[in-house]
């Protein structure tokens, strides 16, 4: 079954849907894109789609594969029309089947967003006034729009689909530094950085990282732009008010540097979403305005063994901390969950615009140092920045004595993607193992010989485990696995009933664990 395909005939949604049917799936989510009768204030009568098929199919397949791996869904598929289409016709279809609805919705959304951004498809709109115009794929359109063309997609003449008229990005001013050079520039291009928050701190972080040629930039922010943001969030304009900041930032960053793969996530980052999202990135940057998110970013980084750059501001001051695997983390500095509401954020306490500008610039600098492997004292504690007195003070922190290896003894239990459920997604296996879960394999001897569990584990046959759950320590954390996730789910349920609250089942079993996801 093709994951991504083009069709010059109407799409058969019943057949497409049927191809995703699957006994292990408990839900199915679908998106349909239709031809509408207007675009940018102009009446549209019909349109044509054209694709660079060879490249487009490859990119489309890649997106489907990413969605399956990232969200742990069972099956996913996308079909796109090419050729002439009438109003109301189905232009693009996405379908996902999955054990649980949350991942199905998320993967469906991911696929359509990424297809719109990344797959080279062009649309020629025929307007009611007899005029027509090519509308390029969103990514190129954003670059062109923001490069000073009249706003509106129809303004780009036929054939100008790619930003061919733009000069190439030029990194010479940083490449000349001995710490960068061509090798360093290649490291920057290969780096994937996830920025949580596209506000006062996030704007300078994102802008400098895009300018530096960081290869992949993720930006997570659920907020819509407000006029009160603009004194410090200088990537945006008054005319943008009301639009999602993640999308606005992505648009501006693509215009700034079309070489950067910018991925926008219009969602609130929390412990559960970060657990999944952070997996695809090398460095996490916290630019949020609250402790709950800051701890969630810290915890995701510690669990996944990735570095994180944290900062926050208050009026004329800021704090900066670089968390490295095995070093002191946010919980070493603030051991008891620090509560929001205790101290003010920008909205309550007030802040001058350049203050987050300075702290965000420091964060961008620390990310570049991390990627370029330049030593920094910020990884051994907290840097207090007082912009009233222009003083910087470095406070050394030590790891909490209970912490060992790369983990942190103060981490809260890993969050299940769906709290109501007993399951962890297959993608969480490696992090659960790293996080100290005891993996219990309940399969029989033949199954185990055919496919050994890909990580250290205990073998307890299902019946023995269910008969006597007390053989396990009630305060332990256990991840039960089997071939397809059904027996392990029953086992986890029995363990929970027996009072073992830290019992989980690996969703979809070993069948859902791809070779590339297996822990080393």
């Amino acid at each position, binding site marked *: 079954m093709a994951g991504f395909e083009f069709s010059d005939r109407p799409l058969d949604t019943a057949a497409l849907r049927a191809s995703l049917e699957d006994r292990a799936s408990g839900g199915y989510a679908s998106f349909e894109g239709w031809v509408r009768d207007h675009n940018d204030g102009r009446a549209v009568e019909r349109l044509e789609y054209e694709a660079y098929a060879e490249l487009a199919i490859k990119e489309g397949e890649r997106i489907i594969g990413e969605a399956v791996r990232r969200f742990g869904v069972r099956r996913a598929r996308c079909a796109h029309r090419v050729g002439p289409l009438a109003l109301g016709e189905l232009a693009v279809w996405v379908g996902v089947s999955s054990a649980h609805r949350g991942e199905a919705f998320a993967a469906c959304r991911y696929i359509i967003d990424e297809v719109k951004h990344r797959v080279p498809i062009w649309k020629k709109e025929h307007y009611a006034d007899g005029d027509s115009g090519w509308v390029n794929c969103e990514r190129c359109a954003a670059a062109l729009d923001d490069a000073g063309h009249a706003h509106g997609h129809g303004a780009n003449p036929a054939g100008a689909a790619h930003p061919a008229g733009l000069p190439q990005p030029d990194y010479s001013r940083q490449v000349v530094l001995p710490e960068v050079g061509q090798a360093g520039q290649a490291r920057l291009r290969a780096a994937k950085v996830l920025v949580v928050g596209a*506000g006062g*701190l996030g704007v300078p972080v994102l802008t400098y990282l895009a300018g530096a040629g960081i290869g992949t930039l993720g930006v997570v922010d659920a907020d819509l732009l407000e006029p009160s943001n603009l004194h410090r969030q200088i990537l945006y304009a008054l005319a943008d008010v009301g639009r999602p900041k993640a999308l606005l930032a992505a648009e501006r960053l693509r215009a700034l540097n079309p070489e950067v793969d910018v991925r926008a996530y219009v969602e609130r980052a929390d412990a559960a979403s970060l657990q999944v999202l952070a997996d695809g990135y090398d460095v996490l940057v916290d630019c949020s305005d609250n402790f709950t998110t800051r701890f969630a970013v810290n915890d995701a980084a510690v669990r996944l063994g990735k570095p994180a750059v944290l900062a926050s501001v*208050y009026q004329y*001051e800021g704090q900066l901390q670089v968390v490295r695997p095995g070093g002191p983390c946010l919980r070493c500095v603030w051991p008891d969950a620090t509560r929001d509401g205790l*101290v003010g954020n920008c909205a309550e306490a007030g802040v001058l615009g350049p203050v*987050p500008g300075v702290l965000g610039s420091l964060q961008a600098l620390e990310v570049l140092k991390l990627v370029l492997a330049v030593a920094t004292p910020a990884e051994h504690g*907290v840097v207090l920045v007082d912009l009233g007195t222009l003083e910087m003070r470095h406070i050394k922190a030590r790891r909490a004595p209970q912490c060992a290896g790369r983990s942190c003894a103060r981490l809260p239990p890993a969050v299940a993607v769906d709290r109501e459920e007993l399951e962890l997604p297959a993608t969480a296996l490696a992090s659960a193992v790293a996080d100290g879960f005891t993996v219990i394999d309940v399969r029989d001897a033949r199954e185990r010989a055919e496919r050994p569990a890909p990580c250290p584990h205990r073998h307890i046959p299902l019946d023995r485990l269910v008969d006597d759950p007390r053989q396990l320590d009630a305060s332990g954390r256990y991840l039960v696995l089997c071939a397809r996730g059904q027996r392990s789910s029953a086992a986890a349920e029995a363990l929970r009933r027996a009072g073992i609250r830290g019992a989980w089942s690996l969703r979809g079993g070993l069948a859902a664990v791809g070779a590339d996801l297996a822990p080393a």
Partner: protein
Amino acid sequence: MSTIEVQYYAVLREQAGLSQERVVTAAATAAALYEELRARHGLTLGPAQLRVAIDGEFADWQAPLADGAKVVFIPPVAGG
């Protein structure tokens, strides 16, 4: 009695109305010093919500204070 250089950050600086001061005190620990200053300046945050650093390093509240120590009281900061 010992002389301590005290520095305040964020909401503490605001409430104390100054960013640093030299304090002559009988307090033997960071906790005792903070209670003394908390009463003097009407600071609202309790020590459980703060961190203290002595001579450039995060320290325990029960850490002893030497004459001439530089003490920084650091509240958590949230804005972004």
